[in-house]
């Protein structure tokens, strides 16, 4: 029993990474109906920027602001930088392509992804980079027979706090309602006095920023980052957002968490090697029986 609990907690940790990345996919998709294939690379870039701050700026910052100050600085720096990168990518790679429809945007998104990935390779080199090992005290916590680390708990707290905040913004504030309204019906939303461009701006800054923060958490959790990791995380997170119902923000969170837990349980009780197969089969089954995902709206075409 303790093993399954432990696996679920592990699953929630990795699931919260997926969820935070999936939010970026889902928000952009909701507003623009565009699959932003470069989103995984936003995540990677964030991770590398955080790494740079922590490795090269750590001495200075730890001296002046303490360890926590350095961490916060890394999170803020990566978040803000990626928000700017997200905006630039939207302007350069997507905006000129929208009018031509959705498919050209897929190619230009893939192009942006290759570009970002290789920029990272050129900038930081092709080797794995290691996050400093001593940032967070390596404290082990044993609850009953469940092994946890301090870092794991912090990551869970931070990601749930982020998700909670976003959930609050989107579900409880008027601006959040504006985002949902825009995703549902752009034209009518503009009749409400909502500036659609501002909503686009918002999703293209917040999504990458969340990705960047996740990148740093992943870096701290696994201590190791590589320039190609965005693909893998991106793919899983995209899967998560579809599982939850793409375009639906609570759906993305739910999808990510479910995916993480499924993956861990599949690995534990089926086979580690077949776990991704298991995850994709579940996804396909869900889509066969609920073609728009778990929380997705039903769409019926009017004839």
């Amino acid at each position: 029993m303790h093993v399954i609990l432990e696996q679920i907690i592990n699953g929630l940790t990795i699931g919260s990474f997926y969820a935070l990345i999936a939010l970026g996919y889902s928000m952009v998709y909701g507003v623009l109906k565009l699959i932003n294939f470069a989103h995984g690379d936003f995540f990677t870039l964030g991770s590398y920027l955080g790494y740079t701050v922590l490795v090269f700026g750590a001495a200075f910052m730890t001296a002046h602001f303490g360890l926590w100050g350095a961490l916060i600085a890394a999170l803020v720096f990566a978040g803000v930088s990626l928000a700017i990168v997200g905006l630039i990518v939207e302007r350069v790679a997507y905006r000129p392509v929208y009018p031509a429809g959705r498919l050209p945007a897929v190619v230009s998104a893939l192009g942006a992804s290759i570009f970002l990935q290789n920029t990272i390779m050129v900038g930081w080199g092709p080797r794995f980079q290691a996050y400093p090992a001593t940032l967070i005290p390596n404290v082990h916590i044993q609850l009953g027979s469940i092994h946890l680390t301090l870092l794991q708990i912090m990551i869970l707290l931070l990601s749930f706090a982020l998700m909670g905040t976003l959930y609050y913004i989107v579900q409880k504030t008027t601006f959040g309602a504006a985002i949902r309204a825009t995703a549902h019906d752009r034209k009518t939303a503009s009749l409400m006095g909502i500036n659609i461009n501002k909503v686009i701006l918002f999703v293209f800054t917040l999504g990458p920023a969340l990705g960047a923060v996740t990148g740093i958490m992943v870096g701290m959790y696994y201590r190791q980052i590589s320039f190609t990791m965005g693909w893998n995380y991106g793919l899983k997170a995209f899967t998560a957002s579809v599982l939850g119902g793409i375009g639906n923000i609570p759906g993305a969170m739910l999808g990510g968490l479910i995916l993480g837990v499924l993956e861990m349980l599949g690995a534990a009780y089926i086979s580690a090697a077949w776990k991704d197969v298991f995850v994709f089969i579940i996804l396909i089954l869900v889509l066969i029986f609920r073609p728009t995902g778990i929380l997705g709206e039903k769409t019926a075409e009017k004839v």
Partner: protein
Amino acid sequence: MTSLLSIERLSIFYGGIQVLHDVSIHLEQGEIVSVLGANGAGKSTLLQAVSGLVPIGSGSVFFRGEKLNSIPPYEIVRKGISLSPEGRRVFPTLTVEENLNLGAYTRKRMKDEVREAKDRVFSLFPILSERRRQLSGTLSGGEQQMLAIGRALMSSPKVLLLDEPSLGLAPILVKQIFDIISEINSQGTSILLVEQNAHKALNIASRGYVLENGHLAASGPTASLRSDKKIQEAYLGGAALKKRPFPAKTGQS
């Protein structure tokens, strides 16, 4: 003195088709003006053009003397023109209250005014107050219509544009909606009403315009329009019946 809202020689094109031809309409402070016409006459397009949703081909729209051409929709709302669109277009996955809050989106910082506006809407439509936490997709058609109108009122507009508020509603509700429209007007909002239900529309309006195939077919005070045979012809194709080149094939016995 300039009109509150004046539409001058407006023409609109969809792709290659002209849907409005040189239409001129004006609305004065405190008035209800009806635009009548059969389906496809161009009524909705007219309202959408005023709201900035469709680009203006030629002609212009003035609000308090200010030209509205090529101002984006969200700016037009800010200036005080609000549209309750055809087919209600409430956001079904949002609650009633969220829908109303969005209506006041341009004033979301002015908490007190928003609350006042909401109280006003709730007093006009008590049912919405009861259902404020319900998802608007679960409302009945009439309730959705009330929500759509209420939502448009939330920005405290000077001009309210109503597109087919009686569409798909049971007669009892139609009466209720029209009563409320009169009341809104008596509270000081000027209304441009697009409506298929000619009798009802003429009942509450002071003046009316009749559109036929994108052209202005008739206009004038309601009393004179009511007696105008043109309306029935515009709606029911009386002219065609008269011109019919051959009798109904199966009609001859």
